[in-house]
């Protein structure tokens, strides 16, 4: 008999860390205990993208969207929703909406999104190959194996205009074509799943929610370039994604969709997983190949490019997870369909991990050309806690800030470079008025310096020198000459570093200087931090006119730096103050200010 209800539980890493596994188990137990286990199917799916509201449980066919669900809620969900047909209002995303109107499409977060890469995330059970197949899975592979020549596959990608989603935006068809035309019997397909930008988790969620989409695309790539072996390089910190990939590969092999003589076509292709130890530089393709071969992950000079001389000296085609996740759809719907989405410069969609000071943090997929304003304010719901928008960092530690004035720039590869940032892999960190631009640049610089492999001097020495200067500035010891020095070092790094990591390390500093020069001047000339972040440059002061002597701040102060009688204005001993800000957060009367 058909199931009357389907309960979809988010099994992404974000929701799983908020106990969604327990919710899943409890729902199954409750369905059994309440006698409906044969009528209800409980499914664990990939990330819904709306991570801010997780863990998420969706019940079909009513399309009820439950958010922030706890394992204890399972009993009520089954008893009320399934048995009695009454929605559990307190858990609904929009509690004011009446029954039958709580359609997922009505949630603002999803309205401007367009899902190609995440087409199956949150819809299918990623550990069940049948569900992927039912949603047109492996249909593209059928076409590629039985109806298309390698040239036609590459041509379809060319028509589509797909560009690499790992950051650089190199046309995918060209990469495939180079590897295809490189001479050699043995060739390799490599999937770069070494996602490393702080705050970015697009690739992880794709692999967790829809692993077959990547396996299928890699096999198609194998057919196109003439390779019979693929590798997925993924960081060991992604255990769930690795597990789902392993399950998916096992099922594909059982079905004969991987391995020898795929679907009786005579074409052989298999995939192995290689775990990385989590070095940022291993996301750089030549360093990644070194790591797969078992060497220390250090970039190699290019040329020769991997397409000519890659893994073990053989022609190798490397694409990122998101790039691969587009391929099956392009083969199925045609390059012309894909080509119409997005802008002239960049076609298709882009997935962004929206994090930072944003109301709805989560995973969003939008057509290229969507403006930043739409992403931050319409989809993201604006800045959390009513603060003022300051900037968005795109491209992670290699990118730059985008400010208010550029909020209406359509986002595509070219557009972002024009305003001094870059697409990157899709991390998007939103900053509000409380974030100090110098401090943020210092954070990214710290990251890049830590992750530098140390092979070439511009990156190894340049990065550390830049960090040293920023340290000086945030401590109030900076001089205006430092700005010139920053530009000189940055120029040398951009010109001289061996790989993209070193070349782009100065970007956060440069873009900060470009868009917030007055903030750097405030640190250097006035010895002040306007955002109140740089501890050496701020003092906390109590306004005696506003202080009512409630003693709340004095009790909170961890070092006893606040003194005063009850009902009398208090005072902060600035010499003892460690500037933790506890008093500032505690005061209910706005009597404490930052200078």
């Amino acid at each position, binding site marked *: 008999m058909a199931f009357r209800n389907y309960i979809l539980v988010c099994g992404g890493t974000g929701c799983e860390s908020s106990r969604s596994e327990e919710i899943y188990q409890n729902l199954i137990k409750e369905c059994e205990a309440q006698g409906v286990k044969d009528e209800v199917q409980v499914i664990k799916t990939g990330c819904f993208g709306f991570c801010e509201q997780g863990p998420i449980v969706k019940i079909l066919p009513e399309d009820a969207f439950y958010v922030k669900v706890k394992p204890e809620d399972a009993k009520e969900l089954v008893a009320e929703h399934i048995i009695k047909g009454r929605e559990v209002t307190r858990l609904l995303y929009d509690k004011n909406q009446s029954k039958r109107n709580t359609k997922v499409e009505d949630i603002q977060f999803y309205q401007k999104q367009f899902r190609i890469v995440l087409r199956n995330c949150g819809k299918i059970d990623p550990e069940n190959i049948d569900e992927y*197949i039912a949603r047109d899975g492996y249909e593209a592979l059928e076409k590629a194996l039985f109806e298309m020549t390698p040239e036609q596959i590459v041509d379809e990608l060319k028509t589509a205009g797909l560009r690499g989603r790992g950051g650089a935006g190199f046309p995918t068809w060209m990469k495939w074509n180079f590897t295809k035309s490189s001479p050699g019997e043995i060739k390799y397909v490599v999937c770069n799943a070494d996602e490393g930008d702080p705050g970015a988790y697009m690739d992880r969620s794709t692999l967790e929610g829809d692993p077959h989409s990547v396996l299928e695309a890699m096999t198609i790539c194998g057919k196109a370039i003439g390779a019979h072996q693929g590798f997925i390089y993924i960081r060991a910190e992604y255990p769930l994604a690795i597990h789902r990939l392993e399950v998916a590969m096992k099922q594909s092999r059982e079905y004969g969709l991987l391995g020898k003589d795929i679907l009786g076509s005579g074409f052989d292709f298999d995939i192995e997983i290689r775990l990385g130890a989590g070095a940022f530089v291993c996301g750089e393709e030549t360093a990644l190949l070194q790591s797969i071969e078992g060497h220390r992950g250090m970039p190699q000079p290019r040329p020769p490019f991997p397409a000519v001389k890659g893994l073990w000296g053989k022609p190798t085609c490397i694409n990122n997870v998101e790039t691969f996740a587009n391929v099956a759809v392009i083969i199925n719907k045609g390059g012309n369909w894909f080509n119409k989405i997005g802008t002239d410069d960049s076609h298709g969609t882009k997935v962004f991990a929206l994090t930072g000071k944003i109301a709805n943090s989560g995973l969003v997929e939008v057509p290229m050309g969507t403006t930043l304003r739409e992403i931050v304010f319409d989809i993201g719901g604006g800045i959390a806690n009513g603060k003022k928008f300051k900037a968005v960092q795109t491209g992670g530690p290699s990118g730059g800030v985008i400010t208010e004035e550029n909020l209406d720039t359509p986002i595509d590869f070219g557009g972002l470079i024009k305003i001094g940032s870059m697409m990157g892999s899709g991390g998007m960190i939103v900053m509000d008025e409380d974030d100090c631009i110098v401090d943020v640049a210092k954070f990214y610089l710290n990251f890049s310096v830590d992750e530098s492999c140390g092979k070439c001097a511009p990156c190894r020495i340049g990065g550390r020198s830049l960090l040293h200067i920023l340290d000086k500035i945030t401590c109030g010891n900076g001089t205006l000459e430092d700005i010139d020095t920053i530009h000189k070092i940055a120029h040398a790094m951009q010109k001289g570093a061996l790989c993209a990591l070193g070349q782009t390390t100065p970007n956060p500093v440069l873009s900060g200087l470009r868009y917030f020069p007055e903030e750097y001047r405030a640190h250097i000339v006035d010895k002040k931090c306007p955002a109140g972040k740089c501890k050496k440059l701020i003092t906390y002061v109590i306004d005696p006119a506003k202080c009512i002597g409630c003693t709340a701040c004095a009790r909170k102060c961890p070092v006893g730096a606040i003194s005063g009688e009850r009902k009398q204005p208090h005072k902060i001993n600035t010499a003892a103050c460690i500037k933790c800000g506890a008093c500032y957060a505690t005061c209910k009367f706005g009597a404490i200010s930052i200078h």
Partner: protein
Amino acid sequence: MAKMTLEDLRKLRESKQDALRKRDVEGKDCQVIVGMGTCGIAAGAKVVLDAFLSELEAKGIENVSVTQTGCMGLCHVEPTVEVIVPGMPDVIYGNVDAKVVKQIVADHIIGKKLVSEHVFDKPAADILKKD
């Protein structure tokens, strides 16, 4: 499962597609809503719900979503079922059983004709404000 050929894969996709389509909310323009308050369940609403699911499956009808609701207030004619089909008035049927379900599917949903002997109006629909 053993290794598949192209044919096997296509067959598998087709069979699984049907199963997955039932989960889809999109494209379902008709609704069957079964009243499953305590009164409804006691009168046999559970049988009615199951009957709808299997009847729709047997007839291969895919544009109908079957959901449930609480008591509709017509406890004396339970089990009650609300049927919403575009182009037809929203109707509440009372005293529904497995046999009537077949009638509703055949006459109302497929044939676009009301099953008159079981029609009950919404209670006091005339004094409720229409918006």
